[in-house]
């Protein structure tokens, strides 16, 4: 090779570097991209374990067409969006109130901060069972198509608010106290201090909490599986539960994979949107 000596060294170093990261790259490919690729491949095939005589033919976009005509799919999408909107807004408001309360200095603050995390530490399935037992004692709550949302959203809010509160508390503690002093000297009321000092400076933390919570709410499964099983009828069935039913209960691998791909696309789009939003939020605070 006619290359100069230093370049040769660089090259062999580069080769070494590639060799060192290769296992990590291979692992990512294996655990992230391979299943995703397989799911996409499945979504273009008819694959119904219960009807093996139909074979596993390539069907193009037929599964996607069926999804778009599927009333249960659109219902599940609507339920998921409604659940995410309702529970995440409740969690943000309550989380903010809790964070503000915990940010004050008072006796036993450490104890309050620790105990507020208890709901978050309880496994979702256990928490959901407790809520189900409570609401089963009340006539008609779990068997009414609208009322059944009350325990679902309450349980999620109860469980996830501490997480939001914790994130926002961290954000609050990063705010310089002298800003409040200056605001007070200028005669700003408590509300104006909150509106014009706290809220803008808390925005990055709020956005982070919003991203985490929306993405998780969009994929809600275990809570509803235990609490209502998607019922009555399919009135509280979220998209993740419908996908699970198609795949694991009905064993329609092709169709279930199509649902999975669509869920992936929607979540991915949400994530991209939030990242742009968050990027903006961060630069704003820097300037």
């Amino acid at each position, binding site marked *: 090779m006619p290359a100069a000596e230093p370049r040769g060294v660089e090259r062999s170093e580069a080769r070494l570097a590639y060799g060192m990261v290769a296992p990590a790259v291979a692992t990512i490919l294996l655990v992230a991209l391979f299943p995703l690729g397989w799911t996409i491949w499945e979504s273009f095939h008819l694959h119904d374990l219960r009807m*093996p005589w139909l074979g596993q033919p390539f069907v193009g976009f037929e599964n996607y067409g069926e999804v778009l005509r599927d009333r249960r799919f659109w219902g599940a999408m609507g339920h998921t969006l409604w659940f995410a909107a309702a529970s995440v807004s409740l969690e943000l408001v309550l989380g903010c109130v809790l964070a503000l309360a915990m940010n004050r200095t008072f006796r036993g603050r450490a104890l309050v901060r620790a105990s507020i995390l208890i709901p978050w530490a309880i496994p979702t399935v256990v928490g959901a069972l407790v809520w189900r037992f409570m609401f089963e004692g009340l006539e008609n709550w*779990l068997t009414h198509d609208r009322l059944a949302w009350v325990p679902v959203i309450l349980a999620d809010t109860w469980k996830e608010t501490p997480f939001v509160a914790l994130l926002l508390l961290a954000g609050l503690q990063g705010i310089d106290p002298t800003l409040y002093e200056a605001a007070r000297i200028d005669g700003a009321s408590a509300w104006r201090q909150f509106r014009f000092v706290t809220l803008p400076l808390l925005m990055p933390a709020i956005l982070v909490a919003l991203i985490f919570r929306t993405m998780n709410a969009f994929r809600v499964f275990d809570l509803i599986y235990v609490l209502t099983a998607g019922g*009555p*009828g399919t*009135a509280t069935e979220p998209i993740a539960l419908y996908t699970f039913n198609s795949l694991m209960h009905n064993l329609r691998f092709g169709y279930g994979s199509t649902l999975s791909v669509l869920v992936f696309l929607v979540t991915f789009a949400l994530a991209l949107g939030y990242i742009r939003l968050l990027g903006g939020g961060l630069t704003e605070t820097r300037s």
Partner: protein
Amino acid sequence: MRSSWLALLCLLGCGSEAVGGPTTVTVSGSVLGAEGRILRRQLERFDRETPDVRVEMRPTPDAADLRHQLYVQWLNARATDPDILQVDAIWTPEFAAAGWILPLDPFAPDTAAFFPVTIEANRWQGELFALPWFVDVGMLYWRTDLLDRPPATWEQLERDVRRATADGSPRYGLVWQGARYEGLVTVFLEYLGGFGGRILDGGRVTVSEPPGVLALTTMRDQIRRGVVPARVLTWHEEEPRFAFQNGEAALMRNWPYAVAPMQDSADSRVAGRFAVAPMPAGPGGRHTAAFGGAQLAINAFSPEAEAAWRVIDYLTRPEQMLERAEIVGQFPTRTGVYDDPALAEALAIPPAQAREIVEAAVPRPVTPVYTQLSEMLQIQLHRALSGQAEPAAALARAASEMQALLDRVGLGRGAVARR
């Protein structure tokens, strides 16, 4: 590709069979509680009596849906183990059409000795694919201290409930399985038969015809009028059993298994104060019991089909059925056993009455896509019962979805001749 992976996993997980010595046959099914103990005891006895065949148990989930899912995954992977499968009658056509279980006719089973309804439910395209092991039938449990006689019609039932619950004790009138699962379809089937309707007629969906609408309207109105509590819409088998056993319900629809625990006076507040009867009927129909229970089938990929048949033959002998009846209260599938005086001791109800209920039992539609059809029906039944849709509209929607599926897989109206 997926199949071969699954097969490989199973090979790794299930271990290797011993070479030489007795043939090993594996049996899968429910091994919970008394049912598991009696199966174990019977298989041990078989082992002693049959030195050249060894039997091993492969426990599977007790929940039918989960067991079905597991079987489908195993059989798709052409797993050779387990050799014998405990199947619900509604799965037999599905597994038979898929080529996953063997026809049993070559083994010359004595089908004439079984209730015809139990044999018919296990035939697909004229061949027998599973041997009935025990029968489950839906029955009406009624409190003998609250009512003089079991209600024969729905009107009578409603009057009885009004009278029995007038002072607030018991809290509930009639309780049944109303959650969105297979159990709801069996309850509906009994109301439907009571009005003379059917879910399927060959390849044609008939559930939305007037008897179906009448049956579902009756169920819905019973909930509206408080004859049946709305909370049954989240109940499976055990919740109504607890309610009835604690004296909170005047009537209950359940399977025969509930008799034994409720007769046990230590746990039960109604021991000696209840009896069973056929479900009530409406005009135009007859008293109907949904036919359930377990069958035994041979895995089509099993290398030991002959030995597997010997195990099935052993487990379905009259004396084994009698023992099952004594210990777990499950009804025998052989008619001859009902003449045995020992059965009168074993069952909580007179054998003649049990026999009558079994003979009137109605199987669910015999079709390989039953589980899919059932899910469509379950959702719409549940919507109507929870007040989200009118019974006629819900059934019309279920029927159109069910018919579309049947037509799509070639089992629809034009394919009636296939059966």
